[in-house]
């Protein structure tokens, strides 16, 4: 099981309550951003471009707890910025755990090992370590050599100390599916509970504006990565969201599914787009023109989005909206399909290998006479491992 039974039960009963209450729009996970500053400057990130006085600002623990209570979700994800740079993060997390919220504290893990003693292991707390692939890929993606090794040290230390640890991998154009699969093996071997995977979003403010995946390429890439999967791989994404990434399901965006609260207030409409702020969660629900978002709306900023924050909530809602959805999901959890797919295996084996080093591709790499190559080949015998 990718998550503790108590967590699955809590989420299930929460969603059923929302359904019984007839709520058309209910949130699933609070994305709590207590600060924007970070100790990395990743090329694909559009979250950290602010003036210094904004980057220095932080939410207080009381503001964080109030936001969690106001929106009422059973799960709270704490992205940022880098949450471990917030001096009161242990207090914030402890307060959320005391409120029986399942907390995913997202971190690049550069500070995890040294700050671990400030946290207490709990079924309610998971460190969600952002790892963008194998060493070479991750280090280039986060623009810091050695970042992967430090993060893996943090993961191993947290696992050894009895914490729940998950990972979060974001893929951009140029990602190598074979390398991503090796990356899965490495992190499962490190004792990680489960993994999350998502295509990168086209952040308008990201330094690199050339390498965001379109939908066609995303589906092909995720089909290559997630078909013929190993039984040892555990994912903490909804199984139907995983199928959505592979092109086997079609979900529209649920932008209110994972609302974001930061120093600016409740972000309209979602974690990824900024179209203004509401002062209360209810105002966010009432004042946002939801029909302007999602791929079908024609909004160009939503056109290629397949990100979990908008679409995983759709998978969960579908799961509880019909008997068909419920049975489909139950089957996936019970039988844990490996998605055997000969065409996907062919795709994987024929995926260009020589030009895919860093996750963020570089157009002029050839002109600098440097070619990055992935060096490990994966056997095609991957299913049923």
């Amino acid at each position, binding site marked *: 099981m990718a998550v503790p039974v108590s967590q699955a039960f809590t989420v299930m009963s929460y969603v059923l309550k929302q359904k019984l209450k007839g709520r058309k729009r209910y949130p699933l996970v609070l994305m709590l951003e207590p600060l924007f500053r970070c100790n990395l400057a990743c090329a694909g990130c559009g979250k950290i471009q602010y003036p210094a*006085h904004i980057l220095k600002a932080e939410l207080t623990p009381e503001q964080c707890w109030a936001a969690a209570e106001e929106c009422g979700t059973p799960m709270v994800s704490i992205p940022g910025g880098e949450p471990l740079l917030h001096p009161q993060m242990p207090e914030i997390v402890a307060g959320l755990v005391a409120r029986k919220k399942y907390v995913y504290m997202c971190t690049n893990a550069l500070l995890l090992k040294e700050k671990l003693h400030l946290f207490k292991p709990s079924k309610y707390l998971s460190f969600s370590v952002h790892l963008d692939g194998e060493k070479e890929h991750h280090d280039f993606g986060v623009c810091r050599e050695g970042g992967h090794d430090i993060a893996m040290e943090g993961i191993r230390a947290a696992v050894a100390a009895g914490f729940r640890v998950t990972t979060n991998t974001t893929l951009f154009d140029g990602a190598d599916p074979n390398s991503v699969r090796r990356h899965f093996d490495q992190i499962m071997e490190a004792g990680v509970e489960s993994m999350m995977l998502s295509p990168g979003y086209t952040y308008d403010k990201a330094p690199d504006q050339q390498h965001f995946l379109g*939908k066609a390429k995303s589906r092909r890439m995720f089909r290559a990565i997630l078909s013929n999967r190993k039984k040892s791989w555990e994912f903490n994404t909804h199984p139907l969201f995983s199928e959505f990434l592979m092109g086997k399901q079609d979900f529209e965006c649920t932008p209110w599914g994972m609302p974001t609260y930061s120093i600016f207030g409740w972000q309209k409409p979602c974690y990824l787009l900024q179209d203004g702020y509401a002062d209360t969660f209810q105002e966010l629900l009432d004042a946002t023109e939801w029909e302007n978002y999602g791929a079908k709306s024609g909004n160009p900023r939503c056109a290629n989005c397949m990100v979990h924050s908008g679409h995983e909530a759709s998978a969960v809602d579908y799961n509880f909206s019909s008997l068909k959805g419920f049975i489909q999901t139950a089957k996936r959890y019970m039988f844990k399909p490996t998605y055997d797919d000969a065409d996907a295996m062919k795709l994987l084996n024929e995926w260009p290998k020589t030009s895919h080093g860093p996750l963020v591709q570089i157009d002029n790499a050839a002109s600098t006479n440097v070619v990055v190559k992935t060096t490990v080949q994966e056997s095609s015998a991957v299913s049923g491992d």
Partner: protein
Amino acid sequence: MATDQQEHLKIEQLQHQSQDEIEVIAGRERENLEGWIPALASEAEVRDALEKAFDYRGDVTITRKDGSVVEGYLYDRHSASTLETSVVRIIPTPAKGATTTATQRVMVPYSEIAALNFSGRDTAAGKTFEAWVKKYWEKKAAGEKNIQIEPEKLD
């Protein structure tokens, strides 16, 4: 909401291709707004300039019609049917040496704005990645280790 001008590369791509068939999505065309002082001669110019100010990732300086000045990060705007009922919300730039809590907010109706200056540095100017790539390959070729982009110093 970003303007069509800001999104035109994506809009153009979507006019020619189905979103389900796109391999690599177009990025956003950047506007160099740092230091810009828009004219604000018409209502349309006021609304467009404040939309861009909302999108801008640097501080701006607003001069009210009474002569008072607000400098800070324009983090929100509400564009309503009239300029009197439309407002921007700003977190003022703290004075040097002051602690930052970002709790102070200033609201200014569009109708009170006499001048707007994109006075602060555009922190999303987009040169960082190109600089990183160049520096990365140069340092890599020179055999250096632990190459990285350092986040900017905040003090």
